[in-house]
């Protein structure tokens, strides 16, 4: 897969991160936000693609939660 059009907006990424910061003073640089948006995008796309591969290997017509569950452990280890 080459170009992926959709993505996480910087604003959303910022809010997601700030939700879990322990310190009020913690900030995120603009570049870091952009990079995090890329990281999150890749995380989702990897989860999706690996699940698809699993479904294909099982000769299924649709990707179900069972396929996601099988690929999740390695995904989390890679991230």
């Amino acid at each position: 897969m080459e170009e992926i059009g959709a993505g996480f907006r910087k604003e959303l990424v910022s809010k997601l991160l700030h939700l879990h910061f322990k310190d009020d003073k913690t900030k995120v640089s603009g570049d870091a936000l952009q990079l995090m948006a890329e990281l999150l995008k890749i995380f989702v796309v990897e989860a999706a693609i690996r699940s698809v591969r699993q479904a294909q290997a099982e000769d299924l017509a649709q990707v179900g939660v069972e396929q996601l569950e099988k690929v999740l452990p390695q995904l989390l280890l890679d991230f």
Partner: protein
Amino acid sequence: MMEEEEGAEEQQRFSYQQRLKAAVHYTVGCLCEEVASDKEMQFSKQTIAAISEVTFQQCENFAKDLEMFARHAKRSTINTEDVKLLARRSNSLLKYITEKNEDIAQFNLERKAKKKKKLEDENKNSVEPAEAGVVESEN
């Protein structure tokens, strides 16, 4: 009275989280749709919801790690080096993120140069442009 206030605060945080989750769910849905049409394979609604849930949870780990990395470096602003540290577990991931970082830096550099030129062209008597809301990159 204290309990009521705490209860209300809890409620607020909960509904704020729900709104964020919904926003994540939307983006995850868009991304899955692109993968689905590229691979010609459909995702069940539950699968998209599950990916969305996992992504939201993963953000908590990312956020806490990032905060700690920055603090470890005695900074209060998280920068791209901290994000790269997050991607350390997989070589291909680290490579991808490092490349993206260079793309972003390059793009922003070019954008700033364009803006500067445009400003110089438009204003003979230049006025300082207003500071952007987002913290400026330290890189």
